[in-house]
């Protein structure tokens, strides 16, 4: 039986040795595209026609078992006026900043309907602000008129494309 143990060990070592000599040409990389949501909660607006709030979005899921981001960019952001808004729509100038990315557009958000904002590919990188799978953002809005509600929520859905390794 001891002899077979030795032979078996030889067989295992033979196969293991063959594969253990595999050396990759650098780390294996994966592109991952996923969407992450965050809510910008507006409270106590009263008669004001503007607000500013900051938050952060956890994109840790993109890393999964990988160790680091090689690239990370926002492909698009979808803004949705949530059902807690008592009116129907709001119109205004929206200014969204995520690290070096700044989006400034005049939008009309209708309750329950998403409005997509495409980020130009040459200005979409958030790699510099991604820290351990979290990126912060700041959203400002100047409405054309006082919103019908003091308290409401704007949902932001970020479509992220990341290269991880």
């Amino acid at each position, binding site marked *: *039986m001891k002899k*077979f*143990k030795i*032979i*078996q060990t*030889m*067989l295992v070592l*033979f*196969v*293991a040795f*063959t*594969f*253990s*000599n*595999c*050396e*990759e*040409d*650098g*780390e*294996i*990389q*994966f*592109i*991952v*595209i*996923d969407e992450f949501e965050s809510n910008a909660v507006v409270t106590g607006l009263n008669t004001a026609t503007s607000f500013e709030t900051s938050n952060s979005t956890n994109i840790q899921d*993109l890393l*999964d*078992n*990988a160790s680091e981001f090689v690239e990370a960019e926002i492909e698009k952001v979808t803004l949705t006026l949530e059902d807690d808004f008592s009116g129907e729509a709001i119109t205004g100038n929206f200014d969204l900043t995520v690290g070096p990315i700044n989006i400034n557009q005049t939008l009309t958000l209708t309750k329950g309907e998403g409005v997509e904002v495409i980020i130009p590919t040459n200005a979409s990188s958030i790699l510099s602000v991604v820290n351990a799978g979290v990126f912060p953002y700041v959203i400002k809005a100047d409405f054309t008129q006082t919103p019908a509600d003091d308290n409401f929520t704007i949902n932001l859905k970020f479509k992220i494309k990341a*290269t*991880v390794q």
Partner: protein
Amino acid sequence: MKKVFLFLFTAFTLTSYSQIELESILEGGVADARALLQGYVEPFPTGFGNGINGGWYSTAKTHKLFGFDIAVIANGASVPSSAETFTFNNADYSNIKLEDSSISSAELPTLFGSQKLDDRPLLTFTDDTGNSISTSSLPGSGLKEAIGYNVVPSAMLQAGIGLFKNTDLIIRYIPEQNDTDYQFSTFGFGIKHDLKQWIPFVKRLPFDVSALVGWNDVKSKFFIDPEDQPSQALEFNTKTFIFQVLASKKLSIFTIYGGVGTTNYKTDVNMLGSYTTSASNTTYTDPISLKYDGSSMKANLGLSIKLLFLNIAAEYATQEYDVFSLRAGFSIR
């Protein structure tokens, strides 16, 4: 440079550091997971099935009565470049699709394919709730980048004994080996019979001619997480069959030998145990079962050298996947 320690089933261990977790694949549906892994893994069982059937003999000459030989055989089956990719057709899948909606099919790397990002199209996995994630398809093992070629290794222990009427009985046997990480056993047998003795005049010619028939059964099981999930295992079973007509010519201490015939294999790859996905909290039991089989003509040519009782041989065989075999052992009578 990161070393990759890939033992047998790289396909599944790769998932431990890839974005495509096994559970993500399962969330795409068991049928889709099977179809995807069927294509991805295929070169390995094909190479193993072809390779393990190498090295049955190093001469066409049979032993004298109760003469015997013992040999250790190492085989390497060369994976052709055509097996470095497999075709992914959107139509064959329900919940896994190419992320690029402008195309309906694409070539994806197999286990022996490229690791480069550009060679790995994005796949979108959608679960039952409609959530989806897109990620690069699985990379190859990196073997070709590391050593310059793709090869599936296999090894075998074999003994033969001469019986009556110039007939050898060949046994391939390793009793069940149990370890915390794996189980392994193999059993096979073959018959080599001298044909020349039955053919008038030919039996006087100065070379040997015989026929070989052999069957082999390799059973193995690799435990994925033996400490926490002892029931989770990867089972890999292969049965092979070979029939060949052999010829050899002894020249001093050298013997040139060769054979022509057929070889075939049947392989089952099963993922055993229960797996619960975190997204939908669904439990899958024995979720993956892959079956492979193949047969081809086989022609091989080899050279052996005998120094007293020591016998060393090398041969090359053309078949579905070409196989290079080395054999070392002792032969008496």
